[in-house]
């Protein structure tokens, strides 16, 4: 016989509801800031990975291998517990005066996800016909400008589906930030559970919110894709 008493009011109103809402706001911030930064860094690394200049290419390659092949949790711990040991005191003081947990989580999520995004964008670039680069160079664009105006815009357009995946991964992975004390959604759900013992309700609520977040990200990217990037794309 089930003796557990469901009490959904815990997660729909009052103090605990507010905890969850504030957790959601932090998750949203982590996700949005992370996605924007990871996309920008991913683009940069993708371009560096294809550079003709060997040191740059090797740096990008090392970056990709390193950050794709180590667990995100370890990377989060590294930035949170490890990085300040090697940073100058002044930087540490400044970091401590800010929200250091949040910053460490954003850095870790950004770098980790950017490595995957860079590889997706690179395969997008490789699928653009060589003649596009020739046309751009013939017009007088430098290699980097050709990338910026002609190659990358096309590559990103065909990379939209894998990019959505990476964005979703980032949003979901942001829950790992709770391990260093970032008060995001999973952290708050855990708090609610330990204060009320209503674990089922708390984590169901968190699950629903993650679902809504993921669905919104997918929808937003698809709307942007349809309206701005590929207005003529079939389906």
């Amino acid at each position, binding site marked *: 016989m089930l003796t557990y008493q469901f009490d959904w009011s815990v997660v729909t109103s009052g103090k605990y509801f507010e905890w969850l809402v504030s957790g959601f706001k932090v998750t949203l911030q982590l996700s949005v800031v992370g996605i924007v930064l990871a996309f920008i860094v991913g683009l940069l690394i993708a371009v560096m990975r294809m550079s003709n200049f060997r040191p740059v290419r090797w740096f990008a390659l090392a970056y990709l291998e390193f950050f794709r092949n180590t667990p995100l949790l370890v990377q989060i711990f590294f930035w949170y517990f490890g990085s300040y040991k090697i940073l100058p005191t002044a930087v540490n003081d400044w970091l401590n005066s800010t929200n250091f947990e949040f910053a460490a989580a954003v850095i870790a999520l950004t770098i980790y996800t950017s490595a995957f995004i860079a590889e997706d964008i690179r395969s997008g670039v490789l699928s653009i016909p060589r*003649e596009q680069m020739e046309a751009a*160079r*013939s017009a*007088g664009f430098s290699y980097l400008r050709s990338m910026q105006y*002609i190659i990358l815009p096309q590559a990103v*357009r065909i990379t939209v589906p894998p990019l959505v995946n990476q964005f979703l991964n980032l949003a979901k992975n942001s829950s790992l930030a709770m391990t260093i004390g970032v008060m995001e959604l999973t952290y708050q759900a855990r708090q609610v559970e330990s204060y009320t013992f209503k674990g089922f309700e708390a984590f169901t609520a968190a699950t629903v919110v993650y679902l809504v977040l993921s669905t919104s990200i997918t929808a937003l990217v698809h709307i942007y894709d349809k309206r701005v990037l590929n207005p003529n794309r079939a389906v």
Partner: protein
Amino acid sequence: MIQFSGVHKWFKQLHVLNDINLRITPGEVLVVCGPSGSGKSTLIRTINQLEPINEGKLVVDGMDLLDKKTDINKLRAEIGFVFQQFNLYPHLSVLSNITLAPLKIRKMQKKEAEEQAMTLLARVGLAEKRDAYPSQLSGGQQQRVAIARALAMKPKIMLFDEPTSALDPEMIGEVLAVMQGLAGTGITMVVVTHEMGFAREVAHRVAFMDHGVVLEEAKPEEFFRNPQHERAQQFLKQLLSPMH
């Protein structure tokens, strides 16, 4: 305007350009023809350094292409290149295809760049296609846009690499007409083509290539009436025979 002196180029073992000596004067229209694989594309692509040369000297618009100090991007901005496969930017509208380089390289004002683009589109007969995307145009229309795009940089030199070979026969005329309109406007043109009608009417000179060598250079009337080399005779016979 363009001067080849003892130019050689190899692709690995393959000797694609063999001692090219060619002088193209400002405003001249030179047609380059020859059998497939003879090195025509390679030759024309060395002029804007899409293919670097290995040996010899190549001076374009006063700039030595082997000189390290030559700013190749600056030189390329003065040279329009028209490809066999058009190579329009598929993610940009017709108008943006034409204005991109003037805006970003020449730092032209948007209004001015668009007005100029519209003038050029009118000139190639496609003013009403300004907002279309390349995929919505026929091959002949795409090629005319590609010509307008190249002209938007006000180039001193226009290079055409088989601009009509990828087109359906009924569209060849419209593209050749645009090119004919350009000839004699002072712009220097090098055109790789098998359109002998165009060569006869528009070219000032014809160069015939075979196996990486410019075998023959002549005024079109001489070249067609009395080709000197056996290879050129064969080539013309094949090209002009109805069964080719």
